[in-house]
């Protein structure tokens, strides 16, 4: 038996592959780097009835072996065993949506014709039954010549049978591949097979048609979309508060505990002022990030996201993009990295490049800590109307500002550097489905883990490095530690550049380490204030109160404006380099974002000063 054995899930988009994959592998899955929805390579272990494990991979959804997007290219290469470093799959598990049989059989025939051991999972038979469709798996098996197993991934129906069939299939020898059959012929065959396999079909009023009438309604549709987005952003701010307060309390308790347990020393300061207050100030935003991702994942899993793309297409077309860009851009609200990776499903290369370049303008969750601290400190917490507060409104305003900027930049780019024919929009609208809690939880866990790992690695290291730079060389008598430190001196130099836009030295200081990740701006402000403060009582003061005492309102507003554009995120630059194959575009991205950040922070500052704020 040679090395790794792989079974691959293949099928059309929306066949329910990801749900089936989750049901088969549970939490035992490995996602390389950052997960896009079905973009990244997802692998998990499946234990066969013989007790032997096999690696199960979830391939990106595809309509055929003739690839039209980078996504489908990956699928094609893996299936054909042409993907570097990836063994050819021992078993191909073809996932079919039972209620969309005819359509999905077109690709299935192509896969089965390759002659590799294959198993068909006739998925979502429950939804088909709801639609009044009864399908004979036996007839399908007869016609396709490979085992057909009925499954309902979300109810764990048919999973044991499918696993057994995969086990049997991997014992089989490869058959000879059949010569390729033209698309038109496969379509005729698909129609005949589906016709024969469908036992009964009633044209019942389908639920999703009714839901579409609501969600795609000429004026109710957009109203619902914007109301939903509004609820999301209010929830991010209000629901998360008790959890964030709890986390903050726990960190404060840890700091007190450390102070009580250790004698006063530089090491204790590193632990409390450096690591705990630095990393802690970022970790408290975990609840907000989890809530935001919860909504995005639920919209994705329910099928609503594609409707949102439909509604937004016309607006996106106005700036030379398509509704397809909407999903990567919406994901970018959580993090630009999965967003940029999700652009792989955009077929048009210039459309894709434009989407990548504007993705960092969507307010990612890493900016939330920065916004949250500044808003909490400078914007009064007053109710405007019922549960709608001014703070939430300002937050929404910052998001909207980012969106408008992104659209404006896209428009300019499409007429200059990414000039080309307007891209089209062709997209399947999947059936509505109740998102399953387990799938949402797996997704949330993966995102939360990525965030915490960042806090534990990049942010931890940057915080420690900054603390060292802030504490050495030690200050002499009558000199403040920050003034004497290396970091203080660098910031003094940088302050000259950012002074015209209202930034003080503390901000200059926080911008340097924030190059690693935006949220570090908060932890470095926390660290530098903790270092600067020798008085124990003042040190215990909340970061927000410190900012309120030290910053003017125009400075705070300029800082917010800076972060709408702020390109500081090494991971985004790195992923852009990888996705665009070179340094040209990430370089361009960095440059234009810095320029816009500077200009708009300046405009904000000057206008606020002129208005006497």
């Amino acid at each position, binding site marked *: 038996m040679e090395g790794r054995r792989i079974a691959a899930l293949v099928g059309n988009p929306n066949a329910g592959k990801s749900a089936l994959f989750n049901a088969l592998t549970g939490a035992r899955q490995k996602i390389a780097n950052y997960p896009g929805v079905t973009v990244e390579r997802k692998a998990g272990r499946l234990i066969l009835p013989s007790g032997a494990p096999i690696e199960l991979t979830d391939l990106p959804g595809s*309509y*055929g072996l*003739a690839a*039209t997007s980078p996504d489908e290219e990956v699928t094609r290469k893996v299936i054909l065993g042409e993907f570097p470093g990836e063994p050819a799959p021992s078993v191909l598990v073809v996932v079919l949506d039972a*209620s*969309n049989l*005819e*359509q999905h059989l*077109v*690709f299935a025939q192509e896969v089965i014709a390759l002659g590799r051991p294959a198993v068909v999972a006739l998925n979502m038979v429950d939804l088909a039954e709801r*639609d009044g469709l009864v399908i004979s798996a036996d007839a399908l098996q007869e016609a396709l010549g490979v085992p057909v197993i009925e499954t309902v991934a979300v109810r764990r129906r048919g999973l044991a049978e499918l696993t057994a069939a995969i086990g049997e299939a991997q014992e089989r020898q490869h058959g000879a591949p059949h010569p390729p059959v033209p*698309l*038109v012929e496969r*379509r005729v065959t698909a129609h005949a097979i589906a016709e024969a396999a469908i036992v009964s079909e009633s044209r019942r009023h389908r639920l*999703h*048609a009714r839901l*579409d*009438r609501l969600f*795609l309604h*000429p*004026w109710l*549709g*957009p109203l619902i979309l914007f109301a939903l987005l509004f609820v999301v952003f209010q929830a991010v701010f209000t629901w998360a508060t008790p959890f964030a307060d709890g986390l903050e309390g726990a960190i404060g308790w840890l700091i007190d505990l450390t102070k009580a347990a250790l004698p006063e020393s530089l090491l204790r300061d590193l632990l409390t002022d450096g690591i705990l207050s630095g990393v802690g100030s970022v970790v408290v935003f975990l609840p907000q990030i989890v809530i935001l991702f919860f909504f995005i994942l639920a919209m994705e899993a329910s099928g609503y996201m*594609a409707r949102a*793309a*439909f*509604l937004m*297409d*016309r*607006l996106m*077309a106005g700036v030379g993009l398509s*509704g397809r860009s909407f999903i990567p851009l919406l994901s970018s609200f959580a993090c630009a990295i999965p967003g940029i990776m999700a652009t792989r499903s955009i*077929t*048009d290369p210039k459309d894709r490049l434009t989407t990548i370049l504007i993705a960092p303008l969507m307010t990612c969750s890493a900016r939330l800590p920065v916004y949250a601290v500044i808003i909490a400190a400078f914007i009064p917490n007053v109710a405007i109307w019922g549960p709608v507060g001014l703070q939430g409104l300002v937050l929404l305003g910052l998001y909207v500002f980012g969106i408008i900027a992104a659209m404006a930049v896209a428009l300019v780019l499409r007429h200059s550097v990414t000039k080309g*024919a307007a891209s*089209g*929009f*062709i*997209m*399947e*609208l999947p059936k509505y489905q109740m998102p399953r809690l387990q799938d949402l939880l797996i997704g949330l866990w993966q995102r939360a883990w990525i965030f915490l790992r960042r806090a534990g690695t990049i942010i931890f290291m940057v915080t420690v490095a900054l603390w060292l730079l802030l504490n050495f060389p030690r200050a002499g008598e009558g000199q403040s530690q920050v003034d004497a430190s290396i970091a203080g001196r660098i910031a003094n130099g940088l302050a000259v550049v950012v002074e015209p836009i209202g930034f003080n030295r503390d901000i200059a200081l926080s911008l340097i380490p924030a190059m690693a990740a935006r949220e570090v701006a908060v932890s470095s402000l926390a660290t530098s204030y903790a270092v600067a403060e020798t008085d124990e009582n003042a040190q215990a003061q909340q970061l927000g109160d410190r900012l309120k005492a030290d910053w003017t309102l125009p400075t705070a507003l300029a800082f917010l404006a800076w972060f709408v554009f702020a390109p500081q995120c090494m991971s985004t630059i790195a992923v852009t380099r990888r996705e665009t194959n070179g340094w040209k575009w990430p370089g361009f991205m960095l440059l234009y974002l810095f320029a816009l950040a500077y200009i708009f922070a300046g405009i904000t500052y000057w206008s606020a000063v002129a208005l006497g704020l």
Partner: protein
Amino acid sequence: MTLDLLPIGQRARIVAVDWDSLVAEEAQRLQALGIDVGARVAIAHRGIFAGHDPIALMIGRMNVALRRAHARAMTVEPV
């Protein structure tokens, strides 16, 4: 009549497609979705903004969003 002019809910059959007027990849994608000569379709929804773009096309048990420009390349016959 071209597909973009088909009234909502009216069932029709695609009788001709001017593939040359479409971008090659998009033509390929439409074909992969089964949108081709002979397919029975109906328009389920139209876009909300000016121009009523895009269109949600019903084909079989599937809904596909596409632009009016694509629909304009297709000649249909109400059934």
